[in-house]
């Protein structure tokens, strides 16, 4: 189970209150990656399509950031494995708006 924390605007858009819990997230070769988490998130909440990353290129929107385990993963490869704590559900994968763009 993957825990995802969304910023307030996206929680409103997806009609969720607390954190999102995604089951059965797997990427290529079984690895849990930024891409596989976002794929699963957008499949469950299609209204989020295009709000976190470009619908076609998959590129992260400029003023969106990804954090986990007190690390900034925004510029990591979308296909890099996420930290074990995120994969184990101990730590959330955090999506947030940067300190700009509002």
């Amino acid at each position, binding site marked *: 189970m993957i825990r995802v924390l969304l910023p307030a*605007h996206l929680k409103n858009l997806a009609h969720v209150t607390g954190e999102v819990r995604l089951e059965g997230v797997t990427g290529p070769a079984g690895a849990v990656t930024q891409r596989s988490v976002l794929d699963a998130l957008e499949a469950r909440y299609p209204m989020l399509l295009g709000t976190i990353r470009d619908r076609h290129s998959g590129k992260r*929107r400029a003023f969106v950031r990804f954090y986990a385990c007190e690390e900034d993963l925004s510029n990591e490869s979308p296909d890099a494995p996420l930290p074990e704590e995120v994969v184990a559900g101990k730590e959330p994968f955090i999506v947030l708006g940067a300190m700009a763009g509002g």
Partner: protein
Amino acid sequence: MTGVRVLVGTRKGAFVLTSDGGRGDWTVEGPHFGGWEIYHLTGSPVDPNRLYASQSGGWFGQLIQRSDDGGKSWNPVGNDFAYAGEVGEHLWFDGTPRPWEFKRVWHLEPSRDDPDTVYAGAEDAALYLSTDGGLKWTELTALRTHPTGPSWQPGAGGLCLHTIILDPTRPGRIYTAISAAGAFRSDDGGDSWLPINKGLRSGEIPDQDAEVGHCVHHITQHPSRPDTLFMQKHWDVMRSDDAGANWREVSGNLPSDFGFPIAVHPHEPETIFVVPIKSDSEHYPPEGKLRVYRSRTGGDEWEPLTKGLPQSDCYVNVLRDAMAVDMLDPGGIYFGTTGGQVYHSADGGDSWASIVRDLPPVLSVEAQVLP
């Protein structure tokens, strides 16, 4: 007539203002989509409970919201605004080529006869069509790929397609305007486009007779005279009586002919309204006096309308989509300011009152008469 609904888009959300036909007491609802920029909020002419909103923001991009119950509830619909085919390039501010890049939807124009059909005008300039209530958007590529497209340059607000007029009598005729490319007309539903900028004079470009490159701010039309168009350009108020083939200046005695919105009286096709702004850099009314100017002669001769409007120390602007009329009798006129006030007149502009005074900066105003 049970009343009127005024749809207000602002920098930080949408507001819905309602009143009965007397338009004396108003209810203010909102903000909807708090924190988001609502460039445009509008309703279907054939189903006033069908509303569309363009919701955007720097963090999370573009969404389109739809309401089927007059704004009580909303649901996001499609936001896939892809450029079809080869993307191509236009000119950047510095004159270098730059690929088209979608940024936001400035204007939504619902069909006059089908609530599920709606057009969207985008930045960077492109025209989109949805025929399923906003779920799926298809670009009408002939406009962006017009042979003049590679020479289009953005205005200060971006390379935005901000005006869409669906001709009320001639099927397939569409007018659009793009800053700072100019005005265009299609007579075949968007399959081909003709620049209609003859007679425009723009000091900011070297060739006064250029086919494109004019910074058109807004165009309006009265449905009873579809071949007559009124335009507020960067500078100059213009008029065409031949569907845009030729334009002539009708700025007349205006204190400044710079401005953004222009509107036609709902029942008097030769009565038009503008809000002069001092200059291209001084985006506030001359002398700090907020004056709507009315011409009852289709231009050239203008009178200031001041009753109920601040006549000292007023330095707000009125943006291009922030003026609207209702079809009640007597007709109502509305406008919103960058200072967050929404003013209305229920007597053709003779007197004005504020409906609400402290909203975020107003981006758009539309008025609906409720059955």
